[in-house]
């Protein structure tokens, strides 16, 4: 019974953010009150710099994605991945399948920055305005979180510049872990959804 109850706990961004802010501010009030404002402004400056950088990155990626779309390649890609996406996300809308296909492919290539605009677009298309995340949305977050990339290029680059004798020898373990956690995530989301549907069905009776 406690198992089913734990699923009804909603992780609400409002509560989460409030807890982070309040707890750290209370500690800082005792430890170092003068840091509160300067640290916040510093962080938001960092966010602004990050967004500026992201804007430049998105220009390149959104430009190429438009080419992929206009040339009909995205339709081909979606067709190729459709059976898989249909099974994993339970999405029938072809336009949404196409966006998800682009998001997943970008992740696999290790270009998370190209995946983000597609992820946002997919979420907007999947939104049912109920205020709650639905099955496909949760699946998309979990799959993006397990980072299904085939080549961890950034990490290999950092290792090479740190003087590794064989910087690429982490590819195989990374691949094994990524595939395992992605499959685990898919199974978990599917089974939780099944349990939730069962509980819902019972409530209706």
């Amino acid at each position, binding site marked *: 019974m406690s198992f089913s109850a734990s699923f009804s706990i909603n992780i609400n961004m409002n509560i989460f953010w409030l807890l982070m802010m309040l707890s*750290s501010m209370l500690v800082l009030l005792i430890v170092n009150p003068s840091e509160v404002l300067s640290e916040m402004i510093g962080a938001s400056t960092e966010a602004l710099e990050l967004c500026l950088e992201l804007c430049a990155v998105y220009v390149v990626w959104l430009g190429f994605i438009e080419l992929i779309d206009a040339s009909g390649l995205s339709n081909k890609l979606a067709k190729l991945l459709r059976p898989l996406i249909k099974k994993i996300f339970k999405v029938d809308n072809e336009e949404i399948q196409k966006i998800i296909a682009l998001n997943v492919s970008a992740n696999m290539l290790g270009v998370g920055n190209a995946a983000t605009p597609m992820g946002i677009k997919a979420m907007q298309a999947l939104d049912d305005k109920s205020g709650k995340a639905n099955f496909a949305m949760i699946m998309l977050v979990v799959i993006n979180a397990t980072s299904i990339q085939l080549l961890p290029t950034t990490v290999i680059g950092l290792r090479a510049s740190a003087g590794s004798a064989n910087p690429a020898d982490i590819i195989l373990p990374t691949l094994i872990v990524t595939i395992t956690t992605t499959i685990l995530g898919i199974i978990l989301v599917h089974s939780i959804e099944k349990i939730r549907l069962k509980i819902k069905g019972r409530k209706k009776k």
Partner: protein
Amino acid sequence: MSAYILPILFILLILYCIYKRINTYDHFVKGAKGAIKLVVDIFPFIASIMIAVALLRVSGITTWLTQILSPIFNFLGIPPELCELVLLRPFTGSGSYALLENVLATYGADSYIARCACVIMGCSETIFYVATVYFSQTKVRKLLYAIPVALLCSIVGTILACLLCKIM
């Protein structure tokens, strides 16, 4: 080797566009136009999460959590030296990459700890950042079980990464 993949894909894409008789310049500009609006839309969300994370770090709560969690990490087979990296990874991309560089410099790029850190970084994501940004343009405020499941997968991945680095 990996440096060739993206340029080759770009060239193939442009060649395919030529074959399909598509005005590459017009379409590239059309796509690029969306970048500024997208960044303006997500900026407040990114800033808010970064402010919360910065306060959490400067208040010392993360260090304190690291100390509490390190015996648990040890039990799970995760080197305690990587505690902070594992803890911060779901929140900040730039912060965790800075920690990774630190680990590489301190323990040597080919040490067990550094290899673990690399695999952990390669197969995980900034979960809270992804969730915030992805949901930012929707009406969704209740993420249900999305984050718990994502975090659980991340922990399993971390344990598996440390195990694999021992034998591979």
